[in-house]
């Protein structure tokens, strides 16, 4: 081998290494980026909290007595404590990075527990005042209001030097993604319930019943074409077909979960049909022939012999479908909308995790941190699904030899 040729070979070899390295680098970069930006907000509260904070305007009635609880030892140095009101406050940052004051501790004999809702229209209504809520404002009769930006320390010293309180404005900690998670789960359930039967039956027909003729070919290629349609076009279809249909036949009055599910079901059909057909094809013909020879009819053979053998394949199809539902964004922006909601109704607007990321990023300024945290959740689910699919197909291949 001449030297020149060796050099050339070496060069070509190197660029293949380089190309492969880029794939690995991309994957690591994506994961790194998402985790570095998102891990700070990742806690259990994020998954269970509402997105919108609920605000309360609390006021005190005459005739309360002050607390006499000393600062408990369990509270750290950072907690500012008022003995008089039995209240421990601490400075913190919320998920958008703004300064907030969190209620760290409320003594059992605190007069603040007796607060009623000032803005209630139904007379005196008692309200919750618990640890974990945040205080945005305390107004007094005899001096200026203490606000969040003055910090917990000033707020506590203001409290200590007063006898009466005009109003405390406090709220739950918002910014959670509970609503989007619930929507995503609903959507997965309804979509699978629609798409799985139709997809499986279609695959069975195409593989077990259909004759080899022109009509079958046409049906097959019509389904095949669906795979190449971009998801935003499915979204337009959902908007043009399923949204009006659901508005007409249900109590919905805008894009809703049902229209979203139907749209997703159409997207998933080719995926499910293909995966099911693949697994039906692997079932050896000898099984079908023996079943038919034993006197079973075509239906019995299909349901009792072929389908059970193809079950792992169908399971894979389902998992693929779930992954697709979680990741889908473009179609759903049209088919269920981008409104982030806390109370989920299947006839109402709401949004999934993916679309939630999109709306967070479209906001000015974009909330990359919360978006990354949601992305971590999505990536975790997708990765787990991938691993399960791999395990199933490995088993499937082993079992069928």
């Amino acid at each position: 081998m001449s030297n020149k040729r060796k050099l050339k070979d070496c060069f070509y070899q190197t660029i293949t290494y380089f190309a492969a390295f880029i794939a690995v680098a991309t994957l690591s970069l994506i994961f790194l980026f998402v985790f570095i930006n998102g891990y700070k907000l990742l806690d259990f509260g994020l998954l269970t909290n509402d997105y919108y904070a609920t605000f309360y305007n609390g006021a005190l009635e005459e005739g309360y007595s002050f607390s006499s609880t000393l600062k408990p030892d369990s509270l750290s140095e950072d907690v500012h404590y008022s003995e008089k009101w039995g209240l421990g406050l601490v400075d913190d940052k919320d998920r958008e990075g703004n300064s907030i004051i969190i209620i760290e501790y409320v003594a059992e004999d605190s007069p603040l527990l007796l607060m009623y809702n000032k803005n209630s229209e139904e007379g005196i209504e008692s309200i919750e005042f618990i640890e974990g809520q945040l205080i945005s404002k305390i107004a007094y009769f005899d001096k200026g209001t203490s606000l969040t930006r003055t910090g917990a320390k000033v707020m506590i010293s203001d409290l200590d030097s007063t006898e009466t309180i005009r109003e405390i404005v406090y709220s739950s900690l918002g910014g959670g993604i509970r609503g989007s998670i619930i929507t995503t789960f609903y959507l997965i359930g309804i979509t699978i319930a629609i798409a799985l039967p139709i997809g499986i039956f279609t695959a069975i027909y195409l593989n077990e019943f259909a004759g080899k003729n022109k009509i079958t070919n046409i049906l097959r290629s019509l389904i095949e074409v669906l795979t190449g349609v971009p998801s935003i076009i499915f979204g337009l279809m959902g908007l043009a077909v399923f949204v009006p249909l659901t508005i007409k036949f249900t109590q919905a009055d805008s894009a809703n979960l049902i229209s979203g599910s139907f749209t997703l079901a159409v997207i998933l059909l080719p995926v499910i049909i293909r995966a099911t057909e693949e697994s039906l094809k692997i079932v050896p013909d000898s099984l079908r022939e023996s079943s038919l020879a034993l006197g079973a009819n075509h239906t019995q053979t299909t349901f009792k012999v072929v389908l059970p053998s193809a079950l792992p394949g169908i399971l894979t199809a389902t998992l693929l479908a779930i992954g697709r539902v979680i990741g889908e964004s473009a179609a759903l922006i049209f088919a269920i909308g981008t409104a982030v909601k806390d109370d989920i109704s299947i006839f109402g607007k709401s949004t999934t995790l993916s679309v939630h990321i999109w709306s967070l990023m479209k906001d000015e300024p974009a909330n990359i941190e919360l978006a990354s945290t949601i992305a971590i959740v999505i990536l975790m689910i997708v990765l787990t699904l991938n691993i399960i699919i791999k395990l199933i197909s490995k088993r499937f291949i082993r079992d069928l030899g």
Partner: protein
Amino acid sequence: MELVNKFSTKFAQIKKRNKKEHIDIVVRMFFLISTVISASFILIIIVFISMKGIIPFITDNNGIGSVNVIRFLTGSIWLSGTAFQSNLYSVGFIIINTLYIALLSLLISLPLGVLTALFIAKVAPKKLAEFLRTVVELLASIPSIVYGLFGSGVILVFVYNFADVLGIQSKGGNSVMATVLVLSLMTLPTITAISEVSIRSVGKDIEHGSLALGASKTQTNFKVILASAKSGIFASAILGIGRALGEATAVSLVAGNAKSGPTLAFFETTSTLTSTMLEGLKETTGIDYDIRFSVGIVLMVVIMLTNVILNYIKKKVGNVDVK
């Protein structure tokens, strides 16, 4: 009377058949209906989107006047005049933008993808190949919105700084370059996976023949195997460009949504058919709402034509038999 007679004889015939066969027919019909439903959706999509998308062209849009088709397809400003009061919509420049971006992203992702595929299939040791295959699968399974997030968090910053070094002001990095980079990352796994299958399916005899003639391993890989896998590689390119043309959310986060064009400069904002559809979602009636469906028709036609042309080229080019 005759009809009734005919019906009753038919019924008797059916009754004569045994019960099992009877069930078979019913089940078969049931499955056939499912299949017809599945197959009909593509027709529903075409019919309904066309029906909605054609409204701005054939009605007078509540007094605004109908949209001129020629102007719509060739113009260089998305909307002249104020929204809700103008019918002067154009997507001509957006079509060019879309094709330009898809082509550029393919120029990056096709060589990278094919080389990665070659590495996995022929060069890498078995363990490493298995690892890389998993990496590619994972990349393929990452939802597009996460690519969009990555794009606006990392690639925009990179492009912004890069432009800064060159002394060019870019609008926060939102540009042709950022869009192309995001799209090429997204199409990379598709191209790699399909190319790899076609490279692996090249016959051993061709490979051995080349080696026996004295070609080195690397020469064989590049000159013989890649050439033999041509048609599969081309197929992967077609799929990749399809994905690039139809991608919406990720693109809308990095394109910058230019309202006029076409944009050919790398560091200027751009817009694609899909990102245009995602803009201004607040309208719910009238021309500003229906025009989205018209853009949808254009997108479908663009994708279809691209596919037809590329498939034609593929037939001309991919003459080597691949198993």
